[in-house]
Structure formats: C-alpha cells, structure tokens
C-alpha cells in the first residue's frame, strides 16, 4: 500500500453516480457595483437589495445586508462569493451561500448550500449541496436555477 494504489478501486463500478433535481429559483437585485483593484484582483462589491425565491422554498430576499463580494481575476474569470439571507412567508429565516465561477464565455455556475433552522420546515435541505446555473436578468440582476445534487 506504500504507493497507495488499490487496483480494485479503479473498477468502473466504483465511479460513483450523481444526479440533479430541480430545487428552487432565486432572483437577485442589486443597486449597482463598486469595483476596486486589490492585490487579489478586481473586487466587485454589490449590495443585494431584493429578490425572490420560489420552488421547493418560497420567500423573499432580505434587502438589508446581503451581498456579493466577487473577485475578477487577471484571466477574466470571476470567483463568485455571494451571501444571501432570505425569509419565507411565515417569517422563517434561512441563508444561501454561493461560490463558483463566472466566465467571459457565459458559463456561470455556483455550488451552494442552505443553512436552515432545525426548528422549521426546511430540514430536508440540511446537509445537501446544490448547483446553481445563473444568467443575467433584467436591470442588472441575476437569476439562478438551483438543482439539488443527488
């Protein structure tokens, strides 16, 4: 085992299967952007000022304090770093974290997880990963379709 190779591990039957199932859709609204040159690249600072979520979770984006702090790198790719707080119609809070890549060719993918309250109704979302496919929406916003990773 010194070389850490176990030939049986390479059996095609051990290529673990994943899958995807539609979960929810998120729209985000921003009030503009500030771009600052930093040692890491161009930091793109955007306040998230509104939005909605619908699908398996329904609610609205809390418009005070959510934000996106993404980094445009020298190779033109943007490292997405978004933090969103939301509330459903009954007032229950939850959090979505988005990290991923936005490229100049239009590829915009994030992986996400949702932190929900164990006292509430969204326990099913705990311990799951989601993939988001994002596209620009009207007025400089963003629309993200999320899929649960199966």
């Amino acid at each position: 085992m010194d070389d850490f190779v176990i030939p049986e591990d390479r059996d095609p039957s051990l290529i673990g299967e994943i899958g995807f199932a539609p979960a929810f859709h998120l729209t985000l609204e921003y009030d503009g952007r500030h771009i600052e040159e930093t040692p890491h690249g161009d930091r793109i600072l955007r306040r998230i000022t509104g939005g909605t979520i619908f699908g398996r979770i329904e609610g609205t984006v809390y418009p005070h304090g959510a934000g996106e702090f993404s980094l445009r790198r020298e190779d033109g790719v943007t490292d997405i770093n978004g933090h969103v707080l939301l509330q459903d119609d009954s007032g229950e809070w939850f959090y979505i974290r988005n990290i991923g890549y936005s490229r100049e060719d239009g590829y915009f993918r994030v992986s996400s997880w949702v932190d929900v309250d164990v006292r509430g109704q969204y326990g099913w979302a705990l311990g799951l990963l989601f993939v988001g496919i994002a596209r620009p929406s009207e007025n400089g916003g963003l629309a993200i379709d999320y899929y649960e990773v199966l």
Partner: protein
Amino acid sequence: MIDRRKILAGMSAAGALAASGARLHAQAADPDPERLPPTREMAGVGYRWAFSVSVFFRERIMIEAPFRRAFVPAVGGAIWGPRLQGRVVPYGGADFGGGGGPLDAHYMFQADDGHYIYINNRAYMRRVGLDPSTAADRHVEQPGPGQAFSQEFVAPPDSEVPLRMRTSPFFDAPKNSTHDWMNRTLFIGHGLRRVDPDRTIFTYYEIL
C-alpha cells in the same frame, strides 16, 4: 446509460497519451473531445466524469471544541481518469472541518507532469435515513477526575453506514499548464467510504 467499462478501457490509453503529451505541450488547450467520456445530463444540468481520487487516512482526531474540529490527514492516494492523473501528496493536508458544517479539506495533488494542485474540498456527509436536524443537539461527556479521554474516532464503510457524501471542490492549478481548466470549472464530487485500508474514493464530475 453509458458503458463505463468501454470508456475506462479507452481512458487508460488516453491517460498515458495525455501524460506524455503534457511534457511536450505544457500549454495545450482542452483535450480532444473524442477522448473524453460522453456528456451526461439530468434535469438540464450537463456533467461529465473528470477524474477519480482515492484518499487514504490513518489518524482520525476529533477536537470537541464548542464548534468542533476534525483533523483527518490525507496520508496518500492516487488520481486517475480522463482529465487528471497523479497522486495525493502524502501528509500534504487534511480535513479540518468543524462546526457541524461542511467538512473542509485542504490538501495537495501532484499531477503526473510534476505540477502541484491545491484542493479545497467542502463536503456534506449526510447519513441516509438520518434526520440531520438531530445533529444540532450534541452531548459531550466530561471525563471524571483523573480520567483520560479519547479524541480518536472511526469512520465506517458505506456498507455499514450508508452516506450521501457529495463534495464541492475548488482547485488552484498552475495557470501555465494543462491543468488551467480546473481553475475555471465547477466540480461536484461523489464520496465512497472504504476500510481496510481506510480510504475514500472520490469521483469528480465537471459541471458543464
């Protein structure tokens, strides 16, 4: 369904070609699509097997801090598949996950062409059938006076405790290499626990 055996058979030859070609063409573009596994799609999400990694473990330490901290170093491992071949650098990092949140591993790959690649792997291990909300209530037994306590823990194989282990790895790969694509591609990983020896087999898919 794709025939994985057929793909894999073609893969080993392609892998050898890619490895030797890497030295000659360090800045090569994406590989020949014909050498890649077929693109798959579910619910509108396109994805494709990129490579697999077996990561071997020995130490499994749990620090019962208020927000908990695991320490599980990668003692070594192997990387194989269509888009990356190499090894896991022995003791080149660990899972340092804590807080009941995603596990949070930081370690190093070394590709067959010699380049090092940093992986930050965040993952959830959700027990099949377990209500994760029960994990919010954690009791930590205090040792009696003069009593020793153990910080070791074991991780059973999937056959004993089925896990839905999915990961979201991010890589830092050298930009002037054939691995640059890893710097701009979203991946999702599948984890499979094995023991004797203690290891996890990760299957990484690129999200297209």
